[in-house]
């Protein structure tokens, strides 16, 4: 069920980004937010529920996730790896990923 919701959300987020944010679309093209967010699982665990060592994301709100990603990206929040990783995402992508994973 969660997964159906994820796929539906992905489609609608991509569509919303497409309609509301022509600049982001020009910059990044159409993207699948569920796909991008699925790649966070390798370090943060399925659905952001980590087995340990790496922080869990499943207790964070979407605002907190987006805020963290932006702060990692700018370097305002220090990190070992998240800066190198988060710099790969546009603002529209950061918000769409956060919408996928956030509470």
């Amino acid at each position, binding site marked *: 069920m969660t997964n159906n919701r994820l796929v539906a959300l992905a489609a609608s987020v991509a569509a919303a980004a497409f309609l509301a944010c022509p600049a982001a679309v020009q910059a990044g093209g159409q993207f699948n937010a569920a*796909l991008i967010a699925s790649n966070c699982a*390798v370090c943060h665990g399925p659905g952001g529920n980590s087995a340990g060592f790496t922080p869990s994301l499943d207790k964070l709100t979407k605002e907190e996730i987006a805020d963290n990603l932006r702060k990692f990206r700018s370097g305002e929040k220090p990190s070992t790896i998240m800066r190198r990783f988060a710099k790969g*995402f546009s603002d529209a992508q950061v918000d769409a990923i956060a919408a996928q994973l956030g509470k």
Partner: protein
Amino acid sequence: MSKHSATRNTRREFLQLVGAAGVVSALTLTGRVSLAGSSGRVVVVGGGFGGATAARYVKKFDPGIDVTLIEPNIEYVTCPFSNAVLGGIREMTAITHAYKGLSKAGVKVLHDSVSAVDPVKKTLATKGGDSIAYDRLIMSPGVDFRFEDVPGYDEAATRMVPHAWKAGQQTVNLRRQLMAMDDGGLVIIASPGNPFRCPPGPYERASLIAYYLKHNKPRSKLLLLDAKSKFSKMPLFLEGWAIHYKNIEWVAGDKGGEVIEVDAKNRVAITDFDKHKAAVFNFIPPQKAGAIAHGAGLTDKSGWCPVDFSTFESTIHKGIHVIGDAAIVTGMPKSGNAANSQAKACAVAVAALLKGDEPTTPMTSNTCYSLITPEYGISVTAVWTASPDGYKKNSGGVSPKGQDAAFRKLEATYARGWYANISRDIWG
């Protein structure tokens, strides 16, 4: 014996499942709406990093799709963290995974080996004698070795001179040889030219074997003979070795490091200029796509499989997708994490294609952590977007040089986090 009958039982159960699925599609054909929402049949070959991820994620992205995973082994032993086993800091059981989690996720798991693929009829044959039809096939068979390129090295030679580049019995063999070796014995690792599975792998292996030697065989040395003159995360490895290991000597390709012949019986590595006799000799052979990719006619002259970058569909045979080490994915390395990320992108594309939708432009990512000691980790990471000529990097890079011990320790901890979580993402 019991193993054999277990396999047969699994096959029988499987045939029952296939029978049921057959009925469902027959009903659909006669115009009745199937409750399963049957939107096609996907078969995945290979239950490693790429294949097991693909099977799980096709099901996740579209639960109506009938997904079958074919893998000969009852358990999968990961190459990631097998270097830690060689270094004596992890047990084999901690890198071994069963397929129960995938069955629970709704994937039909068949323990058999694919012996032939017919891309026109869209069927495949298994060693066990089954013929299986698919709408779309995803292949992730990993690598095989180019024994034909190295005089003196073949399947039989791998007992004396293990490659340990597919984890399992080979890992155990190399570990036992290291433990049995006298203090003072020379360990040789031979590293191949590009491209090969896991670019930082030979250097992590050198590090963790050097760690074992330093603490257990202090008079022993490790000679790393290399076909290359540059390697992945090289400045970071050299920095870490300068701090921790006086027992590693690296010979670059342009200094005659390439091993061109193996004398397995005497454990001798032969280069253009020298013969080096080892007490333990780990030869990492040059590689090519797994045998079934060749058998199915999916490879080009390079020995690897060309694919469309947004769907991973073979550019040779329509309806067959190739991911992971076997595929040519320009821009991305051959790694477990890359295979996992490609599998997810491929799953999205396959689900869309089966529905008749236009696939979106995928983004992928990869991180390879390496341990230099149990408490000293380094990483390389990247995020990519697909383009018609390969994967274009959005961001990424290696860990910064000159960091303190606390930073390296954090990355060693996060390396363990990566392993625990990617394993659950795939087999959990």
